[in-house]
């Protein structure tokens, strides 16, 4: 497991996925086996019922985040991966949902 290091930043990775039953398990398994903790996670519907958007909050150094994005992009059910800017977007969307 990776330990937090000074300089690690909080990032929110936004992942557009096929809306398959096991897609969340794939994402979570990937983060776990690469040694990254998921701080929080949210699955949202998008306009198309075949797709979903998963927002994953994680901590890591720049290279860790880049590596995790590349790893996530390799999943067959992943259509797009991006880093959310501004960084507060996740918190806002959570509070709206609540």
């Amino acid at each position, binding site marked *: 497991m990776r330990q937090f290091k000074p300089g690690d930043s909080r990032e929110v990775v936004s992942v557009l996925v096929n809306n398959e039953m096991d897609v969340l*398990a794939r994402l979570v398994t990937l983060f776990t086996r690469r040694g990254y903790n998921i701080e929080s996670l949210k699955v949202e519907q998008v306009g198309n019922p075949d797709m979903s958007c998963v927002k994953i909050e994680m901590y890591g150094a720049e290279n860790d985040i880049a*590596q995790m994005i*590349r*790893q996530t992009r390799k999943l*067959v059910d992943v259509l797009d991966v991006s880093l959310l800017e501004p960084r507060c977007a996740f918190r806002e969307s959570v509070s709206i949902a609540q």
Partner: protein
Amino acid sequence: MELTGAQLIIRKLTEHKVNTVFGYPGGTALDLFDDLYKHSDQLTHILTADECGAAHAADGYSRSTGDIGVVFATSGPGATNLITGLATAFMDSVPLLAITVNVSKNLIGHDAFQEIYITGATMPVTKHNYFVDDIGKLPGVLDDAFKVAQSGRPGPVLVDVTKDVTAAGIDYSPGEYIPHQAGRKVQTKVTRNELQAIADKINAAKKPVIFLGGGFAARGRQPLIELLNKADIPITHTIMAAGMIGFDNPRNLGIVGMHGSVAANTTMDEADVMLALGTRFSDRVALDPDKFAKNAVKIQVDIDESAFNKNVQVDHMVVDDAADFVRKLLPFIEEKHHDAWNERMLQLKKHGITSDLDTPLPHPDEVIRDTCAMADKDTIYVTDVGQHQMWAAQFLGDHNTYKFITSGGLGTMGFGYGAAIGAQIGNPDKRVIHITGDVSFHMCLNEACTAVSHDLPIITVIMNNSVLGMVYQWQTIFKDKRYSATDPGRKTDFVKVGEGFGVHGYRAETRSEYIEALKSAMKNSGPSWIEVKIDRNEKVLPFIPGGGSTEDMIIG
């Protein structure tokens, strides 16, 4: 036409030009195996001793032929037995298709007899997997599975189909490919500017080196040799790329890493430009990632973008098929002569490795070198994992080019016999030699029944030192000779065990006895085992301890 799910699976396999399947039947797979029986003229099924052996056999088949390997298993334990085989193929990027049949849809989630959530269990060890409980999805999923397994960085794919789907009917139009899911396509086009920039670095280098990994495809061999000659560059490689460039090629300095040659490891340290092709710089290669090729501008080419900066930080990354990249780079490379650098190579290559242990038993290097000297040039060598694997990788190549099949990434003891069976089935006209150790072989010798059933002339060379050699070596060096669980005192008589299976058994305690046994084994139509005794104090050298660098290398 109206087909059942089972008929559709068989149909799709033949459409994708599969003619051999390894596997093991069972309750849920009854319909699937029934259709396999009806189509035995198109599809040969090889029954193994267990599903793990079947997965390794499909793996060995794929590695030795370049085609996808296919394995069938039933639900529950049949499916879980595949896991080590899938993980082995995953770590070495081998294209496999595993088809498992789960319990019927109405029983899923009820802890039914032999029910297991195999897609969940194999998520971390497959490139992708599919659970199919709807016959309508089956055609698209099967086509997708072939595509995913073989495209980009290849890997194993598992398709789990419920029993009711194998029996259900579907109206199928042949040749129609409707993808199940739209996958994202990786852009893999290196630009002209990138090629020029990389060529400039190589053209200006005084001490260039090419470092080759298992991701480099055989079709790139010729352009690569042209590149080496044109730019006058030495080459080093990982154990996974062993055999790609002949060891008899004077530019080849051998293996880099923990048991790499003095020449290869030192060259990586001294190089000013390193072009890495299809390698992830694993911890057995770049033991200390910060010190790896420390003086070099590092250029990494890989089809998998997640290989970049995963282990070693590089200066340039190119997402492309490594073999295609070399072909594209070639016109940008200038003809060069690096006389001083070549002189250094010659000097480094004098550090040969020969065991000087005082023993009447044959030395490991003699066993491997004698094997290679007597075998045909196109022999396929398959190993298990441990000391014998490293000796094989180090010494086989002193003679000629070869095909070397080994579990590099996962390091799976017990991989060898299954993989050798797959290689022999895929290459009936070639000699397959399985090099193993006594403890690795204890993990897979039950596959002898498969080799006997199909009269496969595989020669298994069992290097018997009566201990768990590699760990024993570590305990000798690091644990003050406290041999915890590495000296089991086994009394296995391999000749008798082999004969019990119907194998020709031999035992050799001297070099000449070994040569005689090998000569005799080469005349047998079925499988042979040659047990050759070696001393337990033989070590794999050179040896860089984990996390160390070339300065920490133990040479003798």
